[in-house]
């Protein structure tokens, strides 16, 4: 989780990462002047569309102050998309690919009262790029 001092730009670094089933991912807020969250797209959390494998546990870090961390262990293969609550409309989203999902595509997005804004949808790195590189950083 990063941001410029004046808050004009905020982002997850890396924005895309591939891990093996059973691995843990830890987010740390490295932005000295803002709070961020890591929050999964799941109907149980703010009634958002499902953008993770069905049956996998959703997460929500709540606001992390500078220096604070939050961890999630990923057991189920698949593609997991997440966002930052105050910055989704600024395109602050990320994607985690666990294992070698088949098919290698994001979970289907059912109709939802709170759809994902276009600025966020266009920010997700392609699954193929994450599978190929392992780590994808913001351009």
């Amino acid at each position, binding site marked *: 989780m990063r*941001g410029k*001092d*004046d*808050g*004009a*730009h*905020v982002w997850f670094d890396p924005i895309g990462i591939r891990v093996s089933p059973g691995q843990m991912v830890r987010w740390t807020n490295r932005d*000295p*002047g*803002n*709070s961020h969250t890591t929050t999964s797209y799941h109907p149980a959390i703010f009634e958002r569309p499902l953008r993770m494998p069905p049956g996998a546990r959703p997460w929500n870090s*709540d*606001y992390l*102050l*500078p220096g604070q961390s939050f961890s999630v262990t990923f057991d189920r293969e698949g593609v997991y998309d997440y966002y930052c*609550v*105050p*910055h989704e*409309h*600024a395109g*602050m989203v990320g994607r985690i690919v666990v294992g070698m999902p088949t098919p290698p595509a994001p979970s289907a997005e059912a109709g939802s009262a709170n759809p994902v804004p276009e600025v966020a949808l266009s920010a997700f790195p392609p699954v193929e790029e994450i599978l190929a590189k392992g780590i994808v950083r913001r351009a």
Partner: protein
Amino acid sequence: MKTIPIALTLMLAGSVPAFTQDVTKSPPPGAFKAVSSLVKLPDFLPGMGQLFVDPATLPAGPFLAYDHDGKLVSTVFMLPIKDLSPDKRFDDLAAPGGVVDHVSVYYNAGHPGVEEPHAHVVLWHVSKADEARVAK
């Protein structure tokens, strides 16, 4: 001696207008609350300082920003980008901070309290050089 309570009342009433709402020192009086007590944000924001706001005025503010010594450095308005439209205007925003030296306007992606992209309009009450007092 029935005149004494009356005199006392007059004196108290007369003293109210003389009480000025001084916002130049932290914490400001009245309905202003530390932003870090309202939402989960660091108490001191690099580049801005320690912020106070009257929650009733959100999201626009005014936010009052203080340096590490509790001196007022700026008054900040936060205007959601989506509200800068033909259908919306911001009028009569309070500006209790006094003399303005210069003004900065810049984009902010959002933060707790104003959770959407918005513009910061900063009325600096100190010189450009003294912006350093809230740099970090």
